[in-house]
């Protein structure tokens, strides 16, 4: 998998996505002592995924807070801390547990800057390990990005590889606006190249990961689905079907520049995400592409998403999730037009 910078400079190292996030958090905490990490078990334990490993030991209990077990409390107090000039980074332990904090997110986090007519900033980052494929029990494998993308006042991003993880978490923390930061938990242990010496500039934008001038279809993914998308592109190539690949990274606001450019040539697009398809980010991507590239489209944008059922027992999750075959099948559907 290519890194965000695409570089493989000798100064780069191979690290897991989890490690890159840990390094990014550490860098942000070193750069600004107003940065706080807070959540359940983020202290001594380092979080259930160890993303905050050793941060409390090195920065102290007032910089890394093991909070009481209450998500509304975590988000609600983080809001107060942000108003006090801090830059809280809240860890939600698993996707399915963000909902007790949903009210504070939509009613306060997203609206206080607007309500105060700019007097308040809300430099708050909400980290959510999301997505399936890890054989977990209920509530531990969901993809709730759609809920947050629909909320004006929030920015929503997802990282798909170690380099992006490292840079994007720092950009999120530095942002004066609230950022909901999605981490593909299934990919935490996948390695990638990271060159901490080359600042890639803004990472809150979508990127064309691969392209060719004879591409027939544009494949669109983000976060957890990128490896699937790359695999599908490779498999399709074997069958003689070249595909462009776009990693959205910024889910709200959507940055469709590279997508539209690609679709001008391909005329076909397939968007891949794990969440149920109904009223999802995939719906928005499909609608937006159609609005902005109508005459270029040779086929309707194909959506490859989870089914509109609650996330199933883990023995069924491989059936539920988008996979290589489902993406290839969507490519065929698209080409069939």
């Amino acid at each position, binding site marked *: 998998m290519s890194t965000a910078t695409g570089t493989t400079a000798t100064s780069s190292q191979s690290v897991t996505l989890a490690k890159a996030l840990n390094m990014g958090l550490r860098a942000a905490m070193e750069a600004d002592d107003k940065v706080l990490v807070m959540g359940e078990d983020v202290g001594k334990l380092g979080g259930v995924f160890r993303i905050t490993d050793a941060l409390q030991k090195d920065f102290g209990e007032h910089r890394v807070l093991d909070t009481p077990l209450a998500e509304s*409390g975590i988000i*609600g107090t983080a809001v*107060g*801390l942000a108003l006090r000039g801090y830059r809280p980074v809240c860890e939600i332990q698993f996707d399915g547990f963000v909902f007790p904090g949903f009210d504070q997110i939509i009613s*306060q986090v997203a609206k206080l800057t607007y309500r105060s007519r700019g007097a*308040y900033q809300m430099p708050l980052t909400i980290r959510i390990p999301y997505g399936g494929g890890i054989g977990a029990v209920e509530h531990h494998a969901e993809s709730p990005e759609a809920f947050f993308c629909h909320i004006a*006042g929030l920015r929503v991003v997802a990282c798909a590889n170690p380099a992006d993880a490292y840079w994007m978490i720092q950009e999120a923390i530095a942002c004066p606006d609230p950022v909901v930061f999605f981490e593909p938990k299934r990919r935490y242990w996948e390695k990638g190249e990271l060159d901490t010496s080359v600042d890639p500039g803004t990472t809150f934008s979508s990127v064309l990961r691969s392209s060719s001038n004879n591409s027939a279809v544009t494949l669109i993914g983000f976060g957890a689905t990128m490896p699937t998308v790359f695999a599908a592109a490779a498999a399709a190539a074997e069958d003689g079907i070249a595909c462009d690949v776009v990693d959205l990274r910024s889910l709200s606001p959507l940055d469709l520049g590279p997508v539209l450019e690609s679709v001008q040539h391909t005329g076909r697009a397939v968007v891949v995400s794990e969440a149920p398809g109904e009223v999802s980010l995939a719906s928005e991507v499909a609608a937006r592409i159609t609005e902005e590239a109508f005459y270029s489209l040779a086929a309707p944008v194909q959506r490859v998403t989870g089914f509109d059922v609650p996330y199933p027992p883990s023995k069924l999750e491989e059936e539920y999730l988008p996979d290589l075959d489902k993406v290839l099948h969507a490519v065929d559907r698209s080409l069939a037009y």
Partner: protein
Amino acid sequence: MAPEQWTPSPQAPAAPEGVGAATSPSPAEVARGLRATGEGADTIQLLSPEGEYTPHPDFPIEVSGELLRDLYRDMVLIRRFDREGNSLQRQGQLSIWVPLLGQEAAQIGAGRGMRDQDMAFPSYREHGIAWCRGVDPTELLGIFRGTNHSGWNPVEKRFHTYTIVIGNQALNAAGYAMGQVFDGKVGGGPESDSEATITFFGDGATAQGDIHEAMVFATAYDSPVVFYCQNNQWAISEPIEKMARLPLYRRAAGYGMPGFRVDGNDVLACLAVTRWAMDECRSGNGPVMIEAFTYRMDAHTTSDDPNRYRMADTTEAWKLLDPIERVRVHLVREGLADQDFFDGIQAEADALAERFRAFAVAMEPPGPETMFSGVYTAPHAQTERQRAEFLEYLEGFGDDAAHGEPANAAGGGH
């Protein structure tokens, strides 16, 4: 025996301490649903409804004629513009008004119990607190006229925006207070520059999970936050007895923080206890809970009709406990104020009301472009595109804004 050690024996147990007077229900009775939320055996009062002042050993306060006259003035002025808000709504100048009538003492006492460096997180009825924080009453009008969602600078005034979603602000306050600890602004004495935070909510709000979580976080982080509950006994149409069995301040003990009930119509009690609580938090002994027991004399808002759910005579009875009247009586009896003083305050109040009204009537609706301002602090492509497209769309109408086809550009959301 304290209620946390209720005797389980079925035969009638002794009345639990804290529920207080013998007239109040026994544990078994409470468990069967007899309510005692109004039970007042341990209510803190310094100034009686008859205007008698009795110092309280635990809450020492210097009571001078000047202090009493200032508190009287505060209460008269906020009541006056509050009434003006009501009539402005009746006359169609405001879409809604949230009256504070009856809660003048609960608010002025608390507001004056704060120090400049302290921070307040109100609900939506705290016009009296706003007054104490230096927010001009006219800055409150935007919310109720619909020209903005908050009219003052919460950072400068150290008075947070109003919070309408019940309970949210208590957690925001608890977090802010955690910041005061982290900033090393806690631990000094009353006259130090140490800080404390106070948050306001109603009796009904105590049912919300956020209030509980705020108390959990505040006690977990020893945060300098005062939980100030104005128990006006009604949550719109629901009496607090429907939601609680005991006085609300008694929840505090379970979290391991001090809790008190004060006579919410006694401005001196509210002032003395709030000041003590803020200084206690300031010195590092927070959090503290205060329940100001009072009564909502008016409707919930101008949209509400209390006649559908409560007896007028109860409201009448509470008039005898009027928070302003008892101060006036005391001032007169003690010869601390003469008729000129009262006339002067009245004149000042009328002038304020006049200015308040004039300002309201003259308020212009904001321009459409402001709809897109302040959504984000950093540049945001989508918001900017939508603003530009919408303004272009509006231009398409030229003068005839009501009808006619726009010339070009996209409307709507996308």
